[in-house]
């Protein structure tokens, strides 16, 4: 039993390897080690198929690593922990529930809330109202998902990921299916939400501008089997502004990450050591 202590990082991924299809199957992740601090926003970027989503599933306890271990908030992850909120590229809202009902769904299944929901419904509903207002969906609570645009559905999906006050927010390419204008709007929405609720965030993305705009730190993964080959700290002040994305420093950072990804795509496993 490991105990939480203020000095240790919020999430520790230690020497994690993951094989698909048993110990002799495909190696998806190789010896990944990373630490994430409390309230930190970390973006994981890498070429497609590099195991970014695998890493996310391991951290949320949906899968267990073949080797190594994950500790979240002082607890060894050996099954799904409900301290996690997730959102994906696909908003995955239930089409028969209104937006408000969709947002409240996690409360009906997460262990620490399901027993309290009936008695404290008003309090929880107020929380949902607050979240929906924060992302600009206040007047759409009673609509069904198909009556909303893709960007609005993704906002609702974000609220659903946050309703149970998760300590860890896992976002798997949440804005990849949206057009560039909507996407940039949602960057600001997400940052705003993070500044209010201060969850620790792992953002998996292949959009390098998105990574630099949103993250405190960017981790670059190699092609399969995925390893972390570089790490960059983003120096820009918060809250970030759209003008920042036009600054030379921003472009330079994106360009550098782009070069690292190219390196990652063309390297054979094991060749490039930590470039940083």
């Amino acid at each position, binding site marked *: 039993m490991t105990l939480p202590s203020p000095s240790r990082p919020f999430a520790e991924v230690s020497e994690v390897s993951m094989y698909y299809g048993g110990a002799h199957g495909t190696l998806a992740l190789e010896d990944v080690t990373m630490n994430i601090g409390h309230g930190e926003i970390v973006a994981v970027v890498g070429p497609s198929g590099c195991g970014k989503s695998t890493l996310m599933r391991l951290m949320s306890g949906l899968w267990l690593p073949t080797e190594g271990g994950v500790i979240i908030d002082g607890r060894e992850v050996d099954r799904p922990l409900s301290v996690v909120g997730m959102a994906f590229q696909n908003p995955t809202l239930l089409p028969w529930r209104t937006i408000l009902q969709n947002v409240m769904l996690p409360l009906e*299944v997460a262990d620490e809330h399901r027993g309290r929901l009936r008695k404290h419904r008003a309090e929880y509903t107020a929380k949902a109202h607050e979240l929906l207002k924060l992302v600009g969906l206040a007047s759409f609570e009673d609509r069904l998902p198909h009556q909303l645009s893709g960007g609005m559905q993704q906002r609702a999906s974000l609220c659903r990921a946050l309703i149970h006050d998760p300590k860890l927010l896992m976002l798997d390419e949440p804005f990849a299916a949206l057009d560039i204008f909507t996407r940039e709007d949602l960057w600001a929405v997400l940052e705003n939400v993070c500044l209010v609720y201060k969850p620790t965030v792992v953002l998996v993305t292949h959009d390098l501008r998105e990574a630099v705009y949103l993250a405190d730190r960017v981790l670059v993964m190699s092609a399969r089997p995925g390893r972390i080959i570089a790490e960059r700290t983003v120096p820009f002040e918060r809250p970030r502004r759209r003008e920042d994305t036009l600054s030379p420093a921003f472009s330079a950072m994106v360009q550098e990450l782009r070069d690292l990804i190219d390196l990652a795509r063309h390297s054979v496993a094991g060749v490039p050591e930590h470039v940083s």
Partner: protein
Amino acid sequence: MSVELILPRQQSPDVAAARAKARLIRDRQRVLAIRRRKRLETALPWLIIIAFVALWELFVRALGIAEFVLPAPSTVVRSMIRWYEPLLLNAGVTLLTTSIGFAAAIVVGLVMGVALGSSTLIYRGVYPLLIAFNSVPKVAVVPVLVLWFGVNSIPAIITAFVISVFPIVVNVATGIATIEPEQRDVLRALGARTTDIVMKVGLPRAMPYFFASLKIAITVAFVGSITAETVASESGIGHLMIVASSRFDVPLVFAGLIVTGIMGVAMYAVAAVIENHTTKWATRGQDNF
């Protein structure tokens, strides 16, 4: 940043008024066109039935086909009026046996569908046997059922049940088994149990599949019960048709067929109405105007 926008052109008031008027006329024409189309849609099934019956009548009369080969619709109607009492009585029996078998199929089909859909193990284990059962021609089983239960309504109920349970099981199982993996992950990451996922996501999303299967199941349920009645029974519309054909009363056989068709359509309509009221979310976009 200085941005120059292209502003909308200013229209003179009379041009704007003229355009508004034109728009109004266009709108009215559009509404009328939609109404005409709606009327046609509701009338069309009836028109086609009437045309079909008229062609049938013409065909029989023109070729002078004998009554015991193919009776004209007018002959069938006369027979229906003459024999309306036994027709109604036996139709009632068939409707009852079919409904009982069908109701049992709904309950068992839902339970089995949920079990098969939520567990790969059960699915893999049970499915081959289920397919084997479904491949057996029901007509071959009826004599055995009669041996077990005697000449009464029970073989008809069982046949209706057996034949209609399969589409329900398969559809419900499919609906539950095809939950999007990400949807499942969102809930599982929160510590949701399999029963949570089935109740919150699986069953609601299986409902459109379930109602679609009911529409198939209700029609085949009639096939099942009437098949059983024709093999061995003392009542029911199938029994009536067998008796009629043994007396070469072909118009009465056709009268029985038509009554069966009407019952099938009526039950289908009931299933469709229930479907429309319970799973509106699944037919979005089809209810404009």
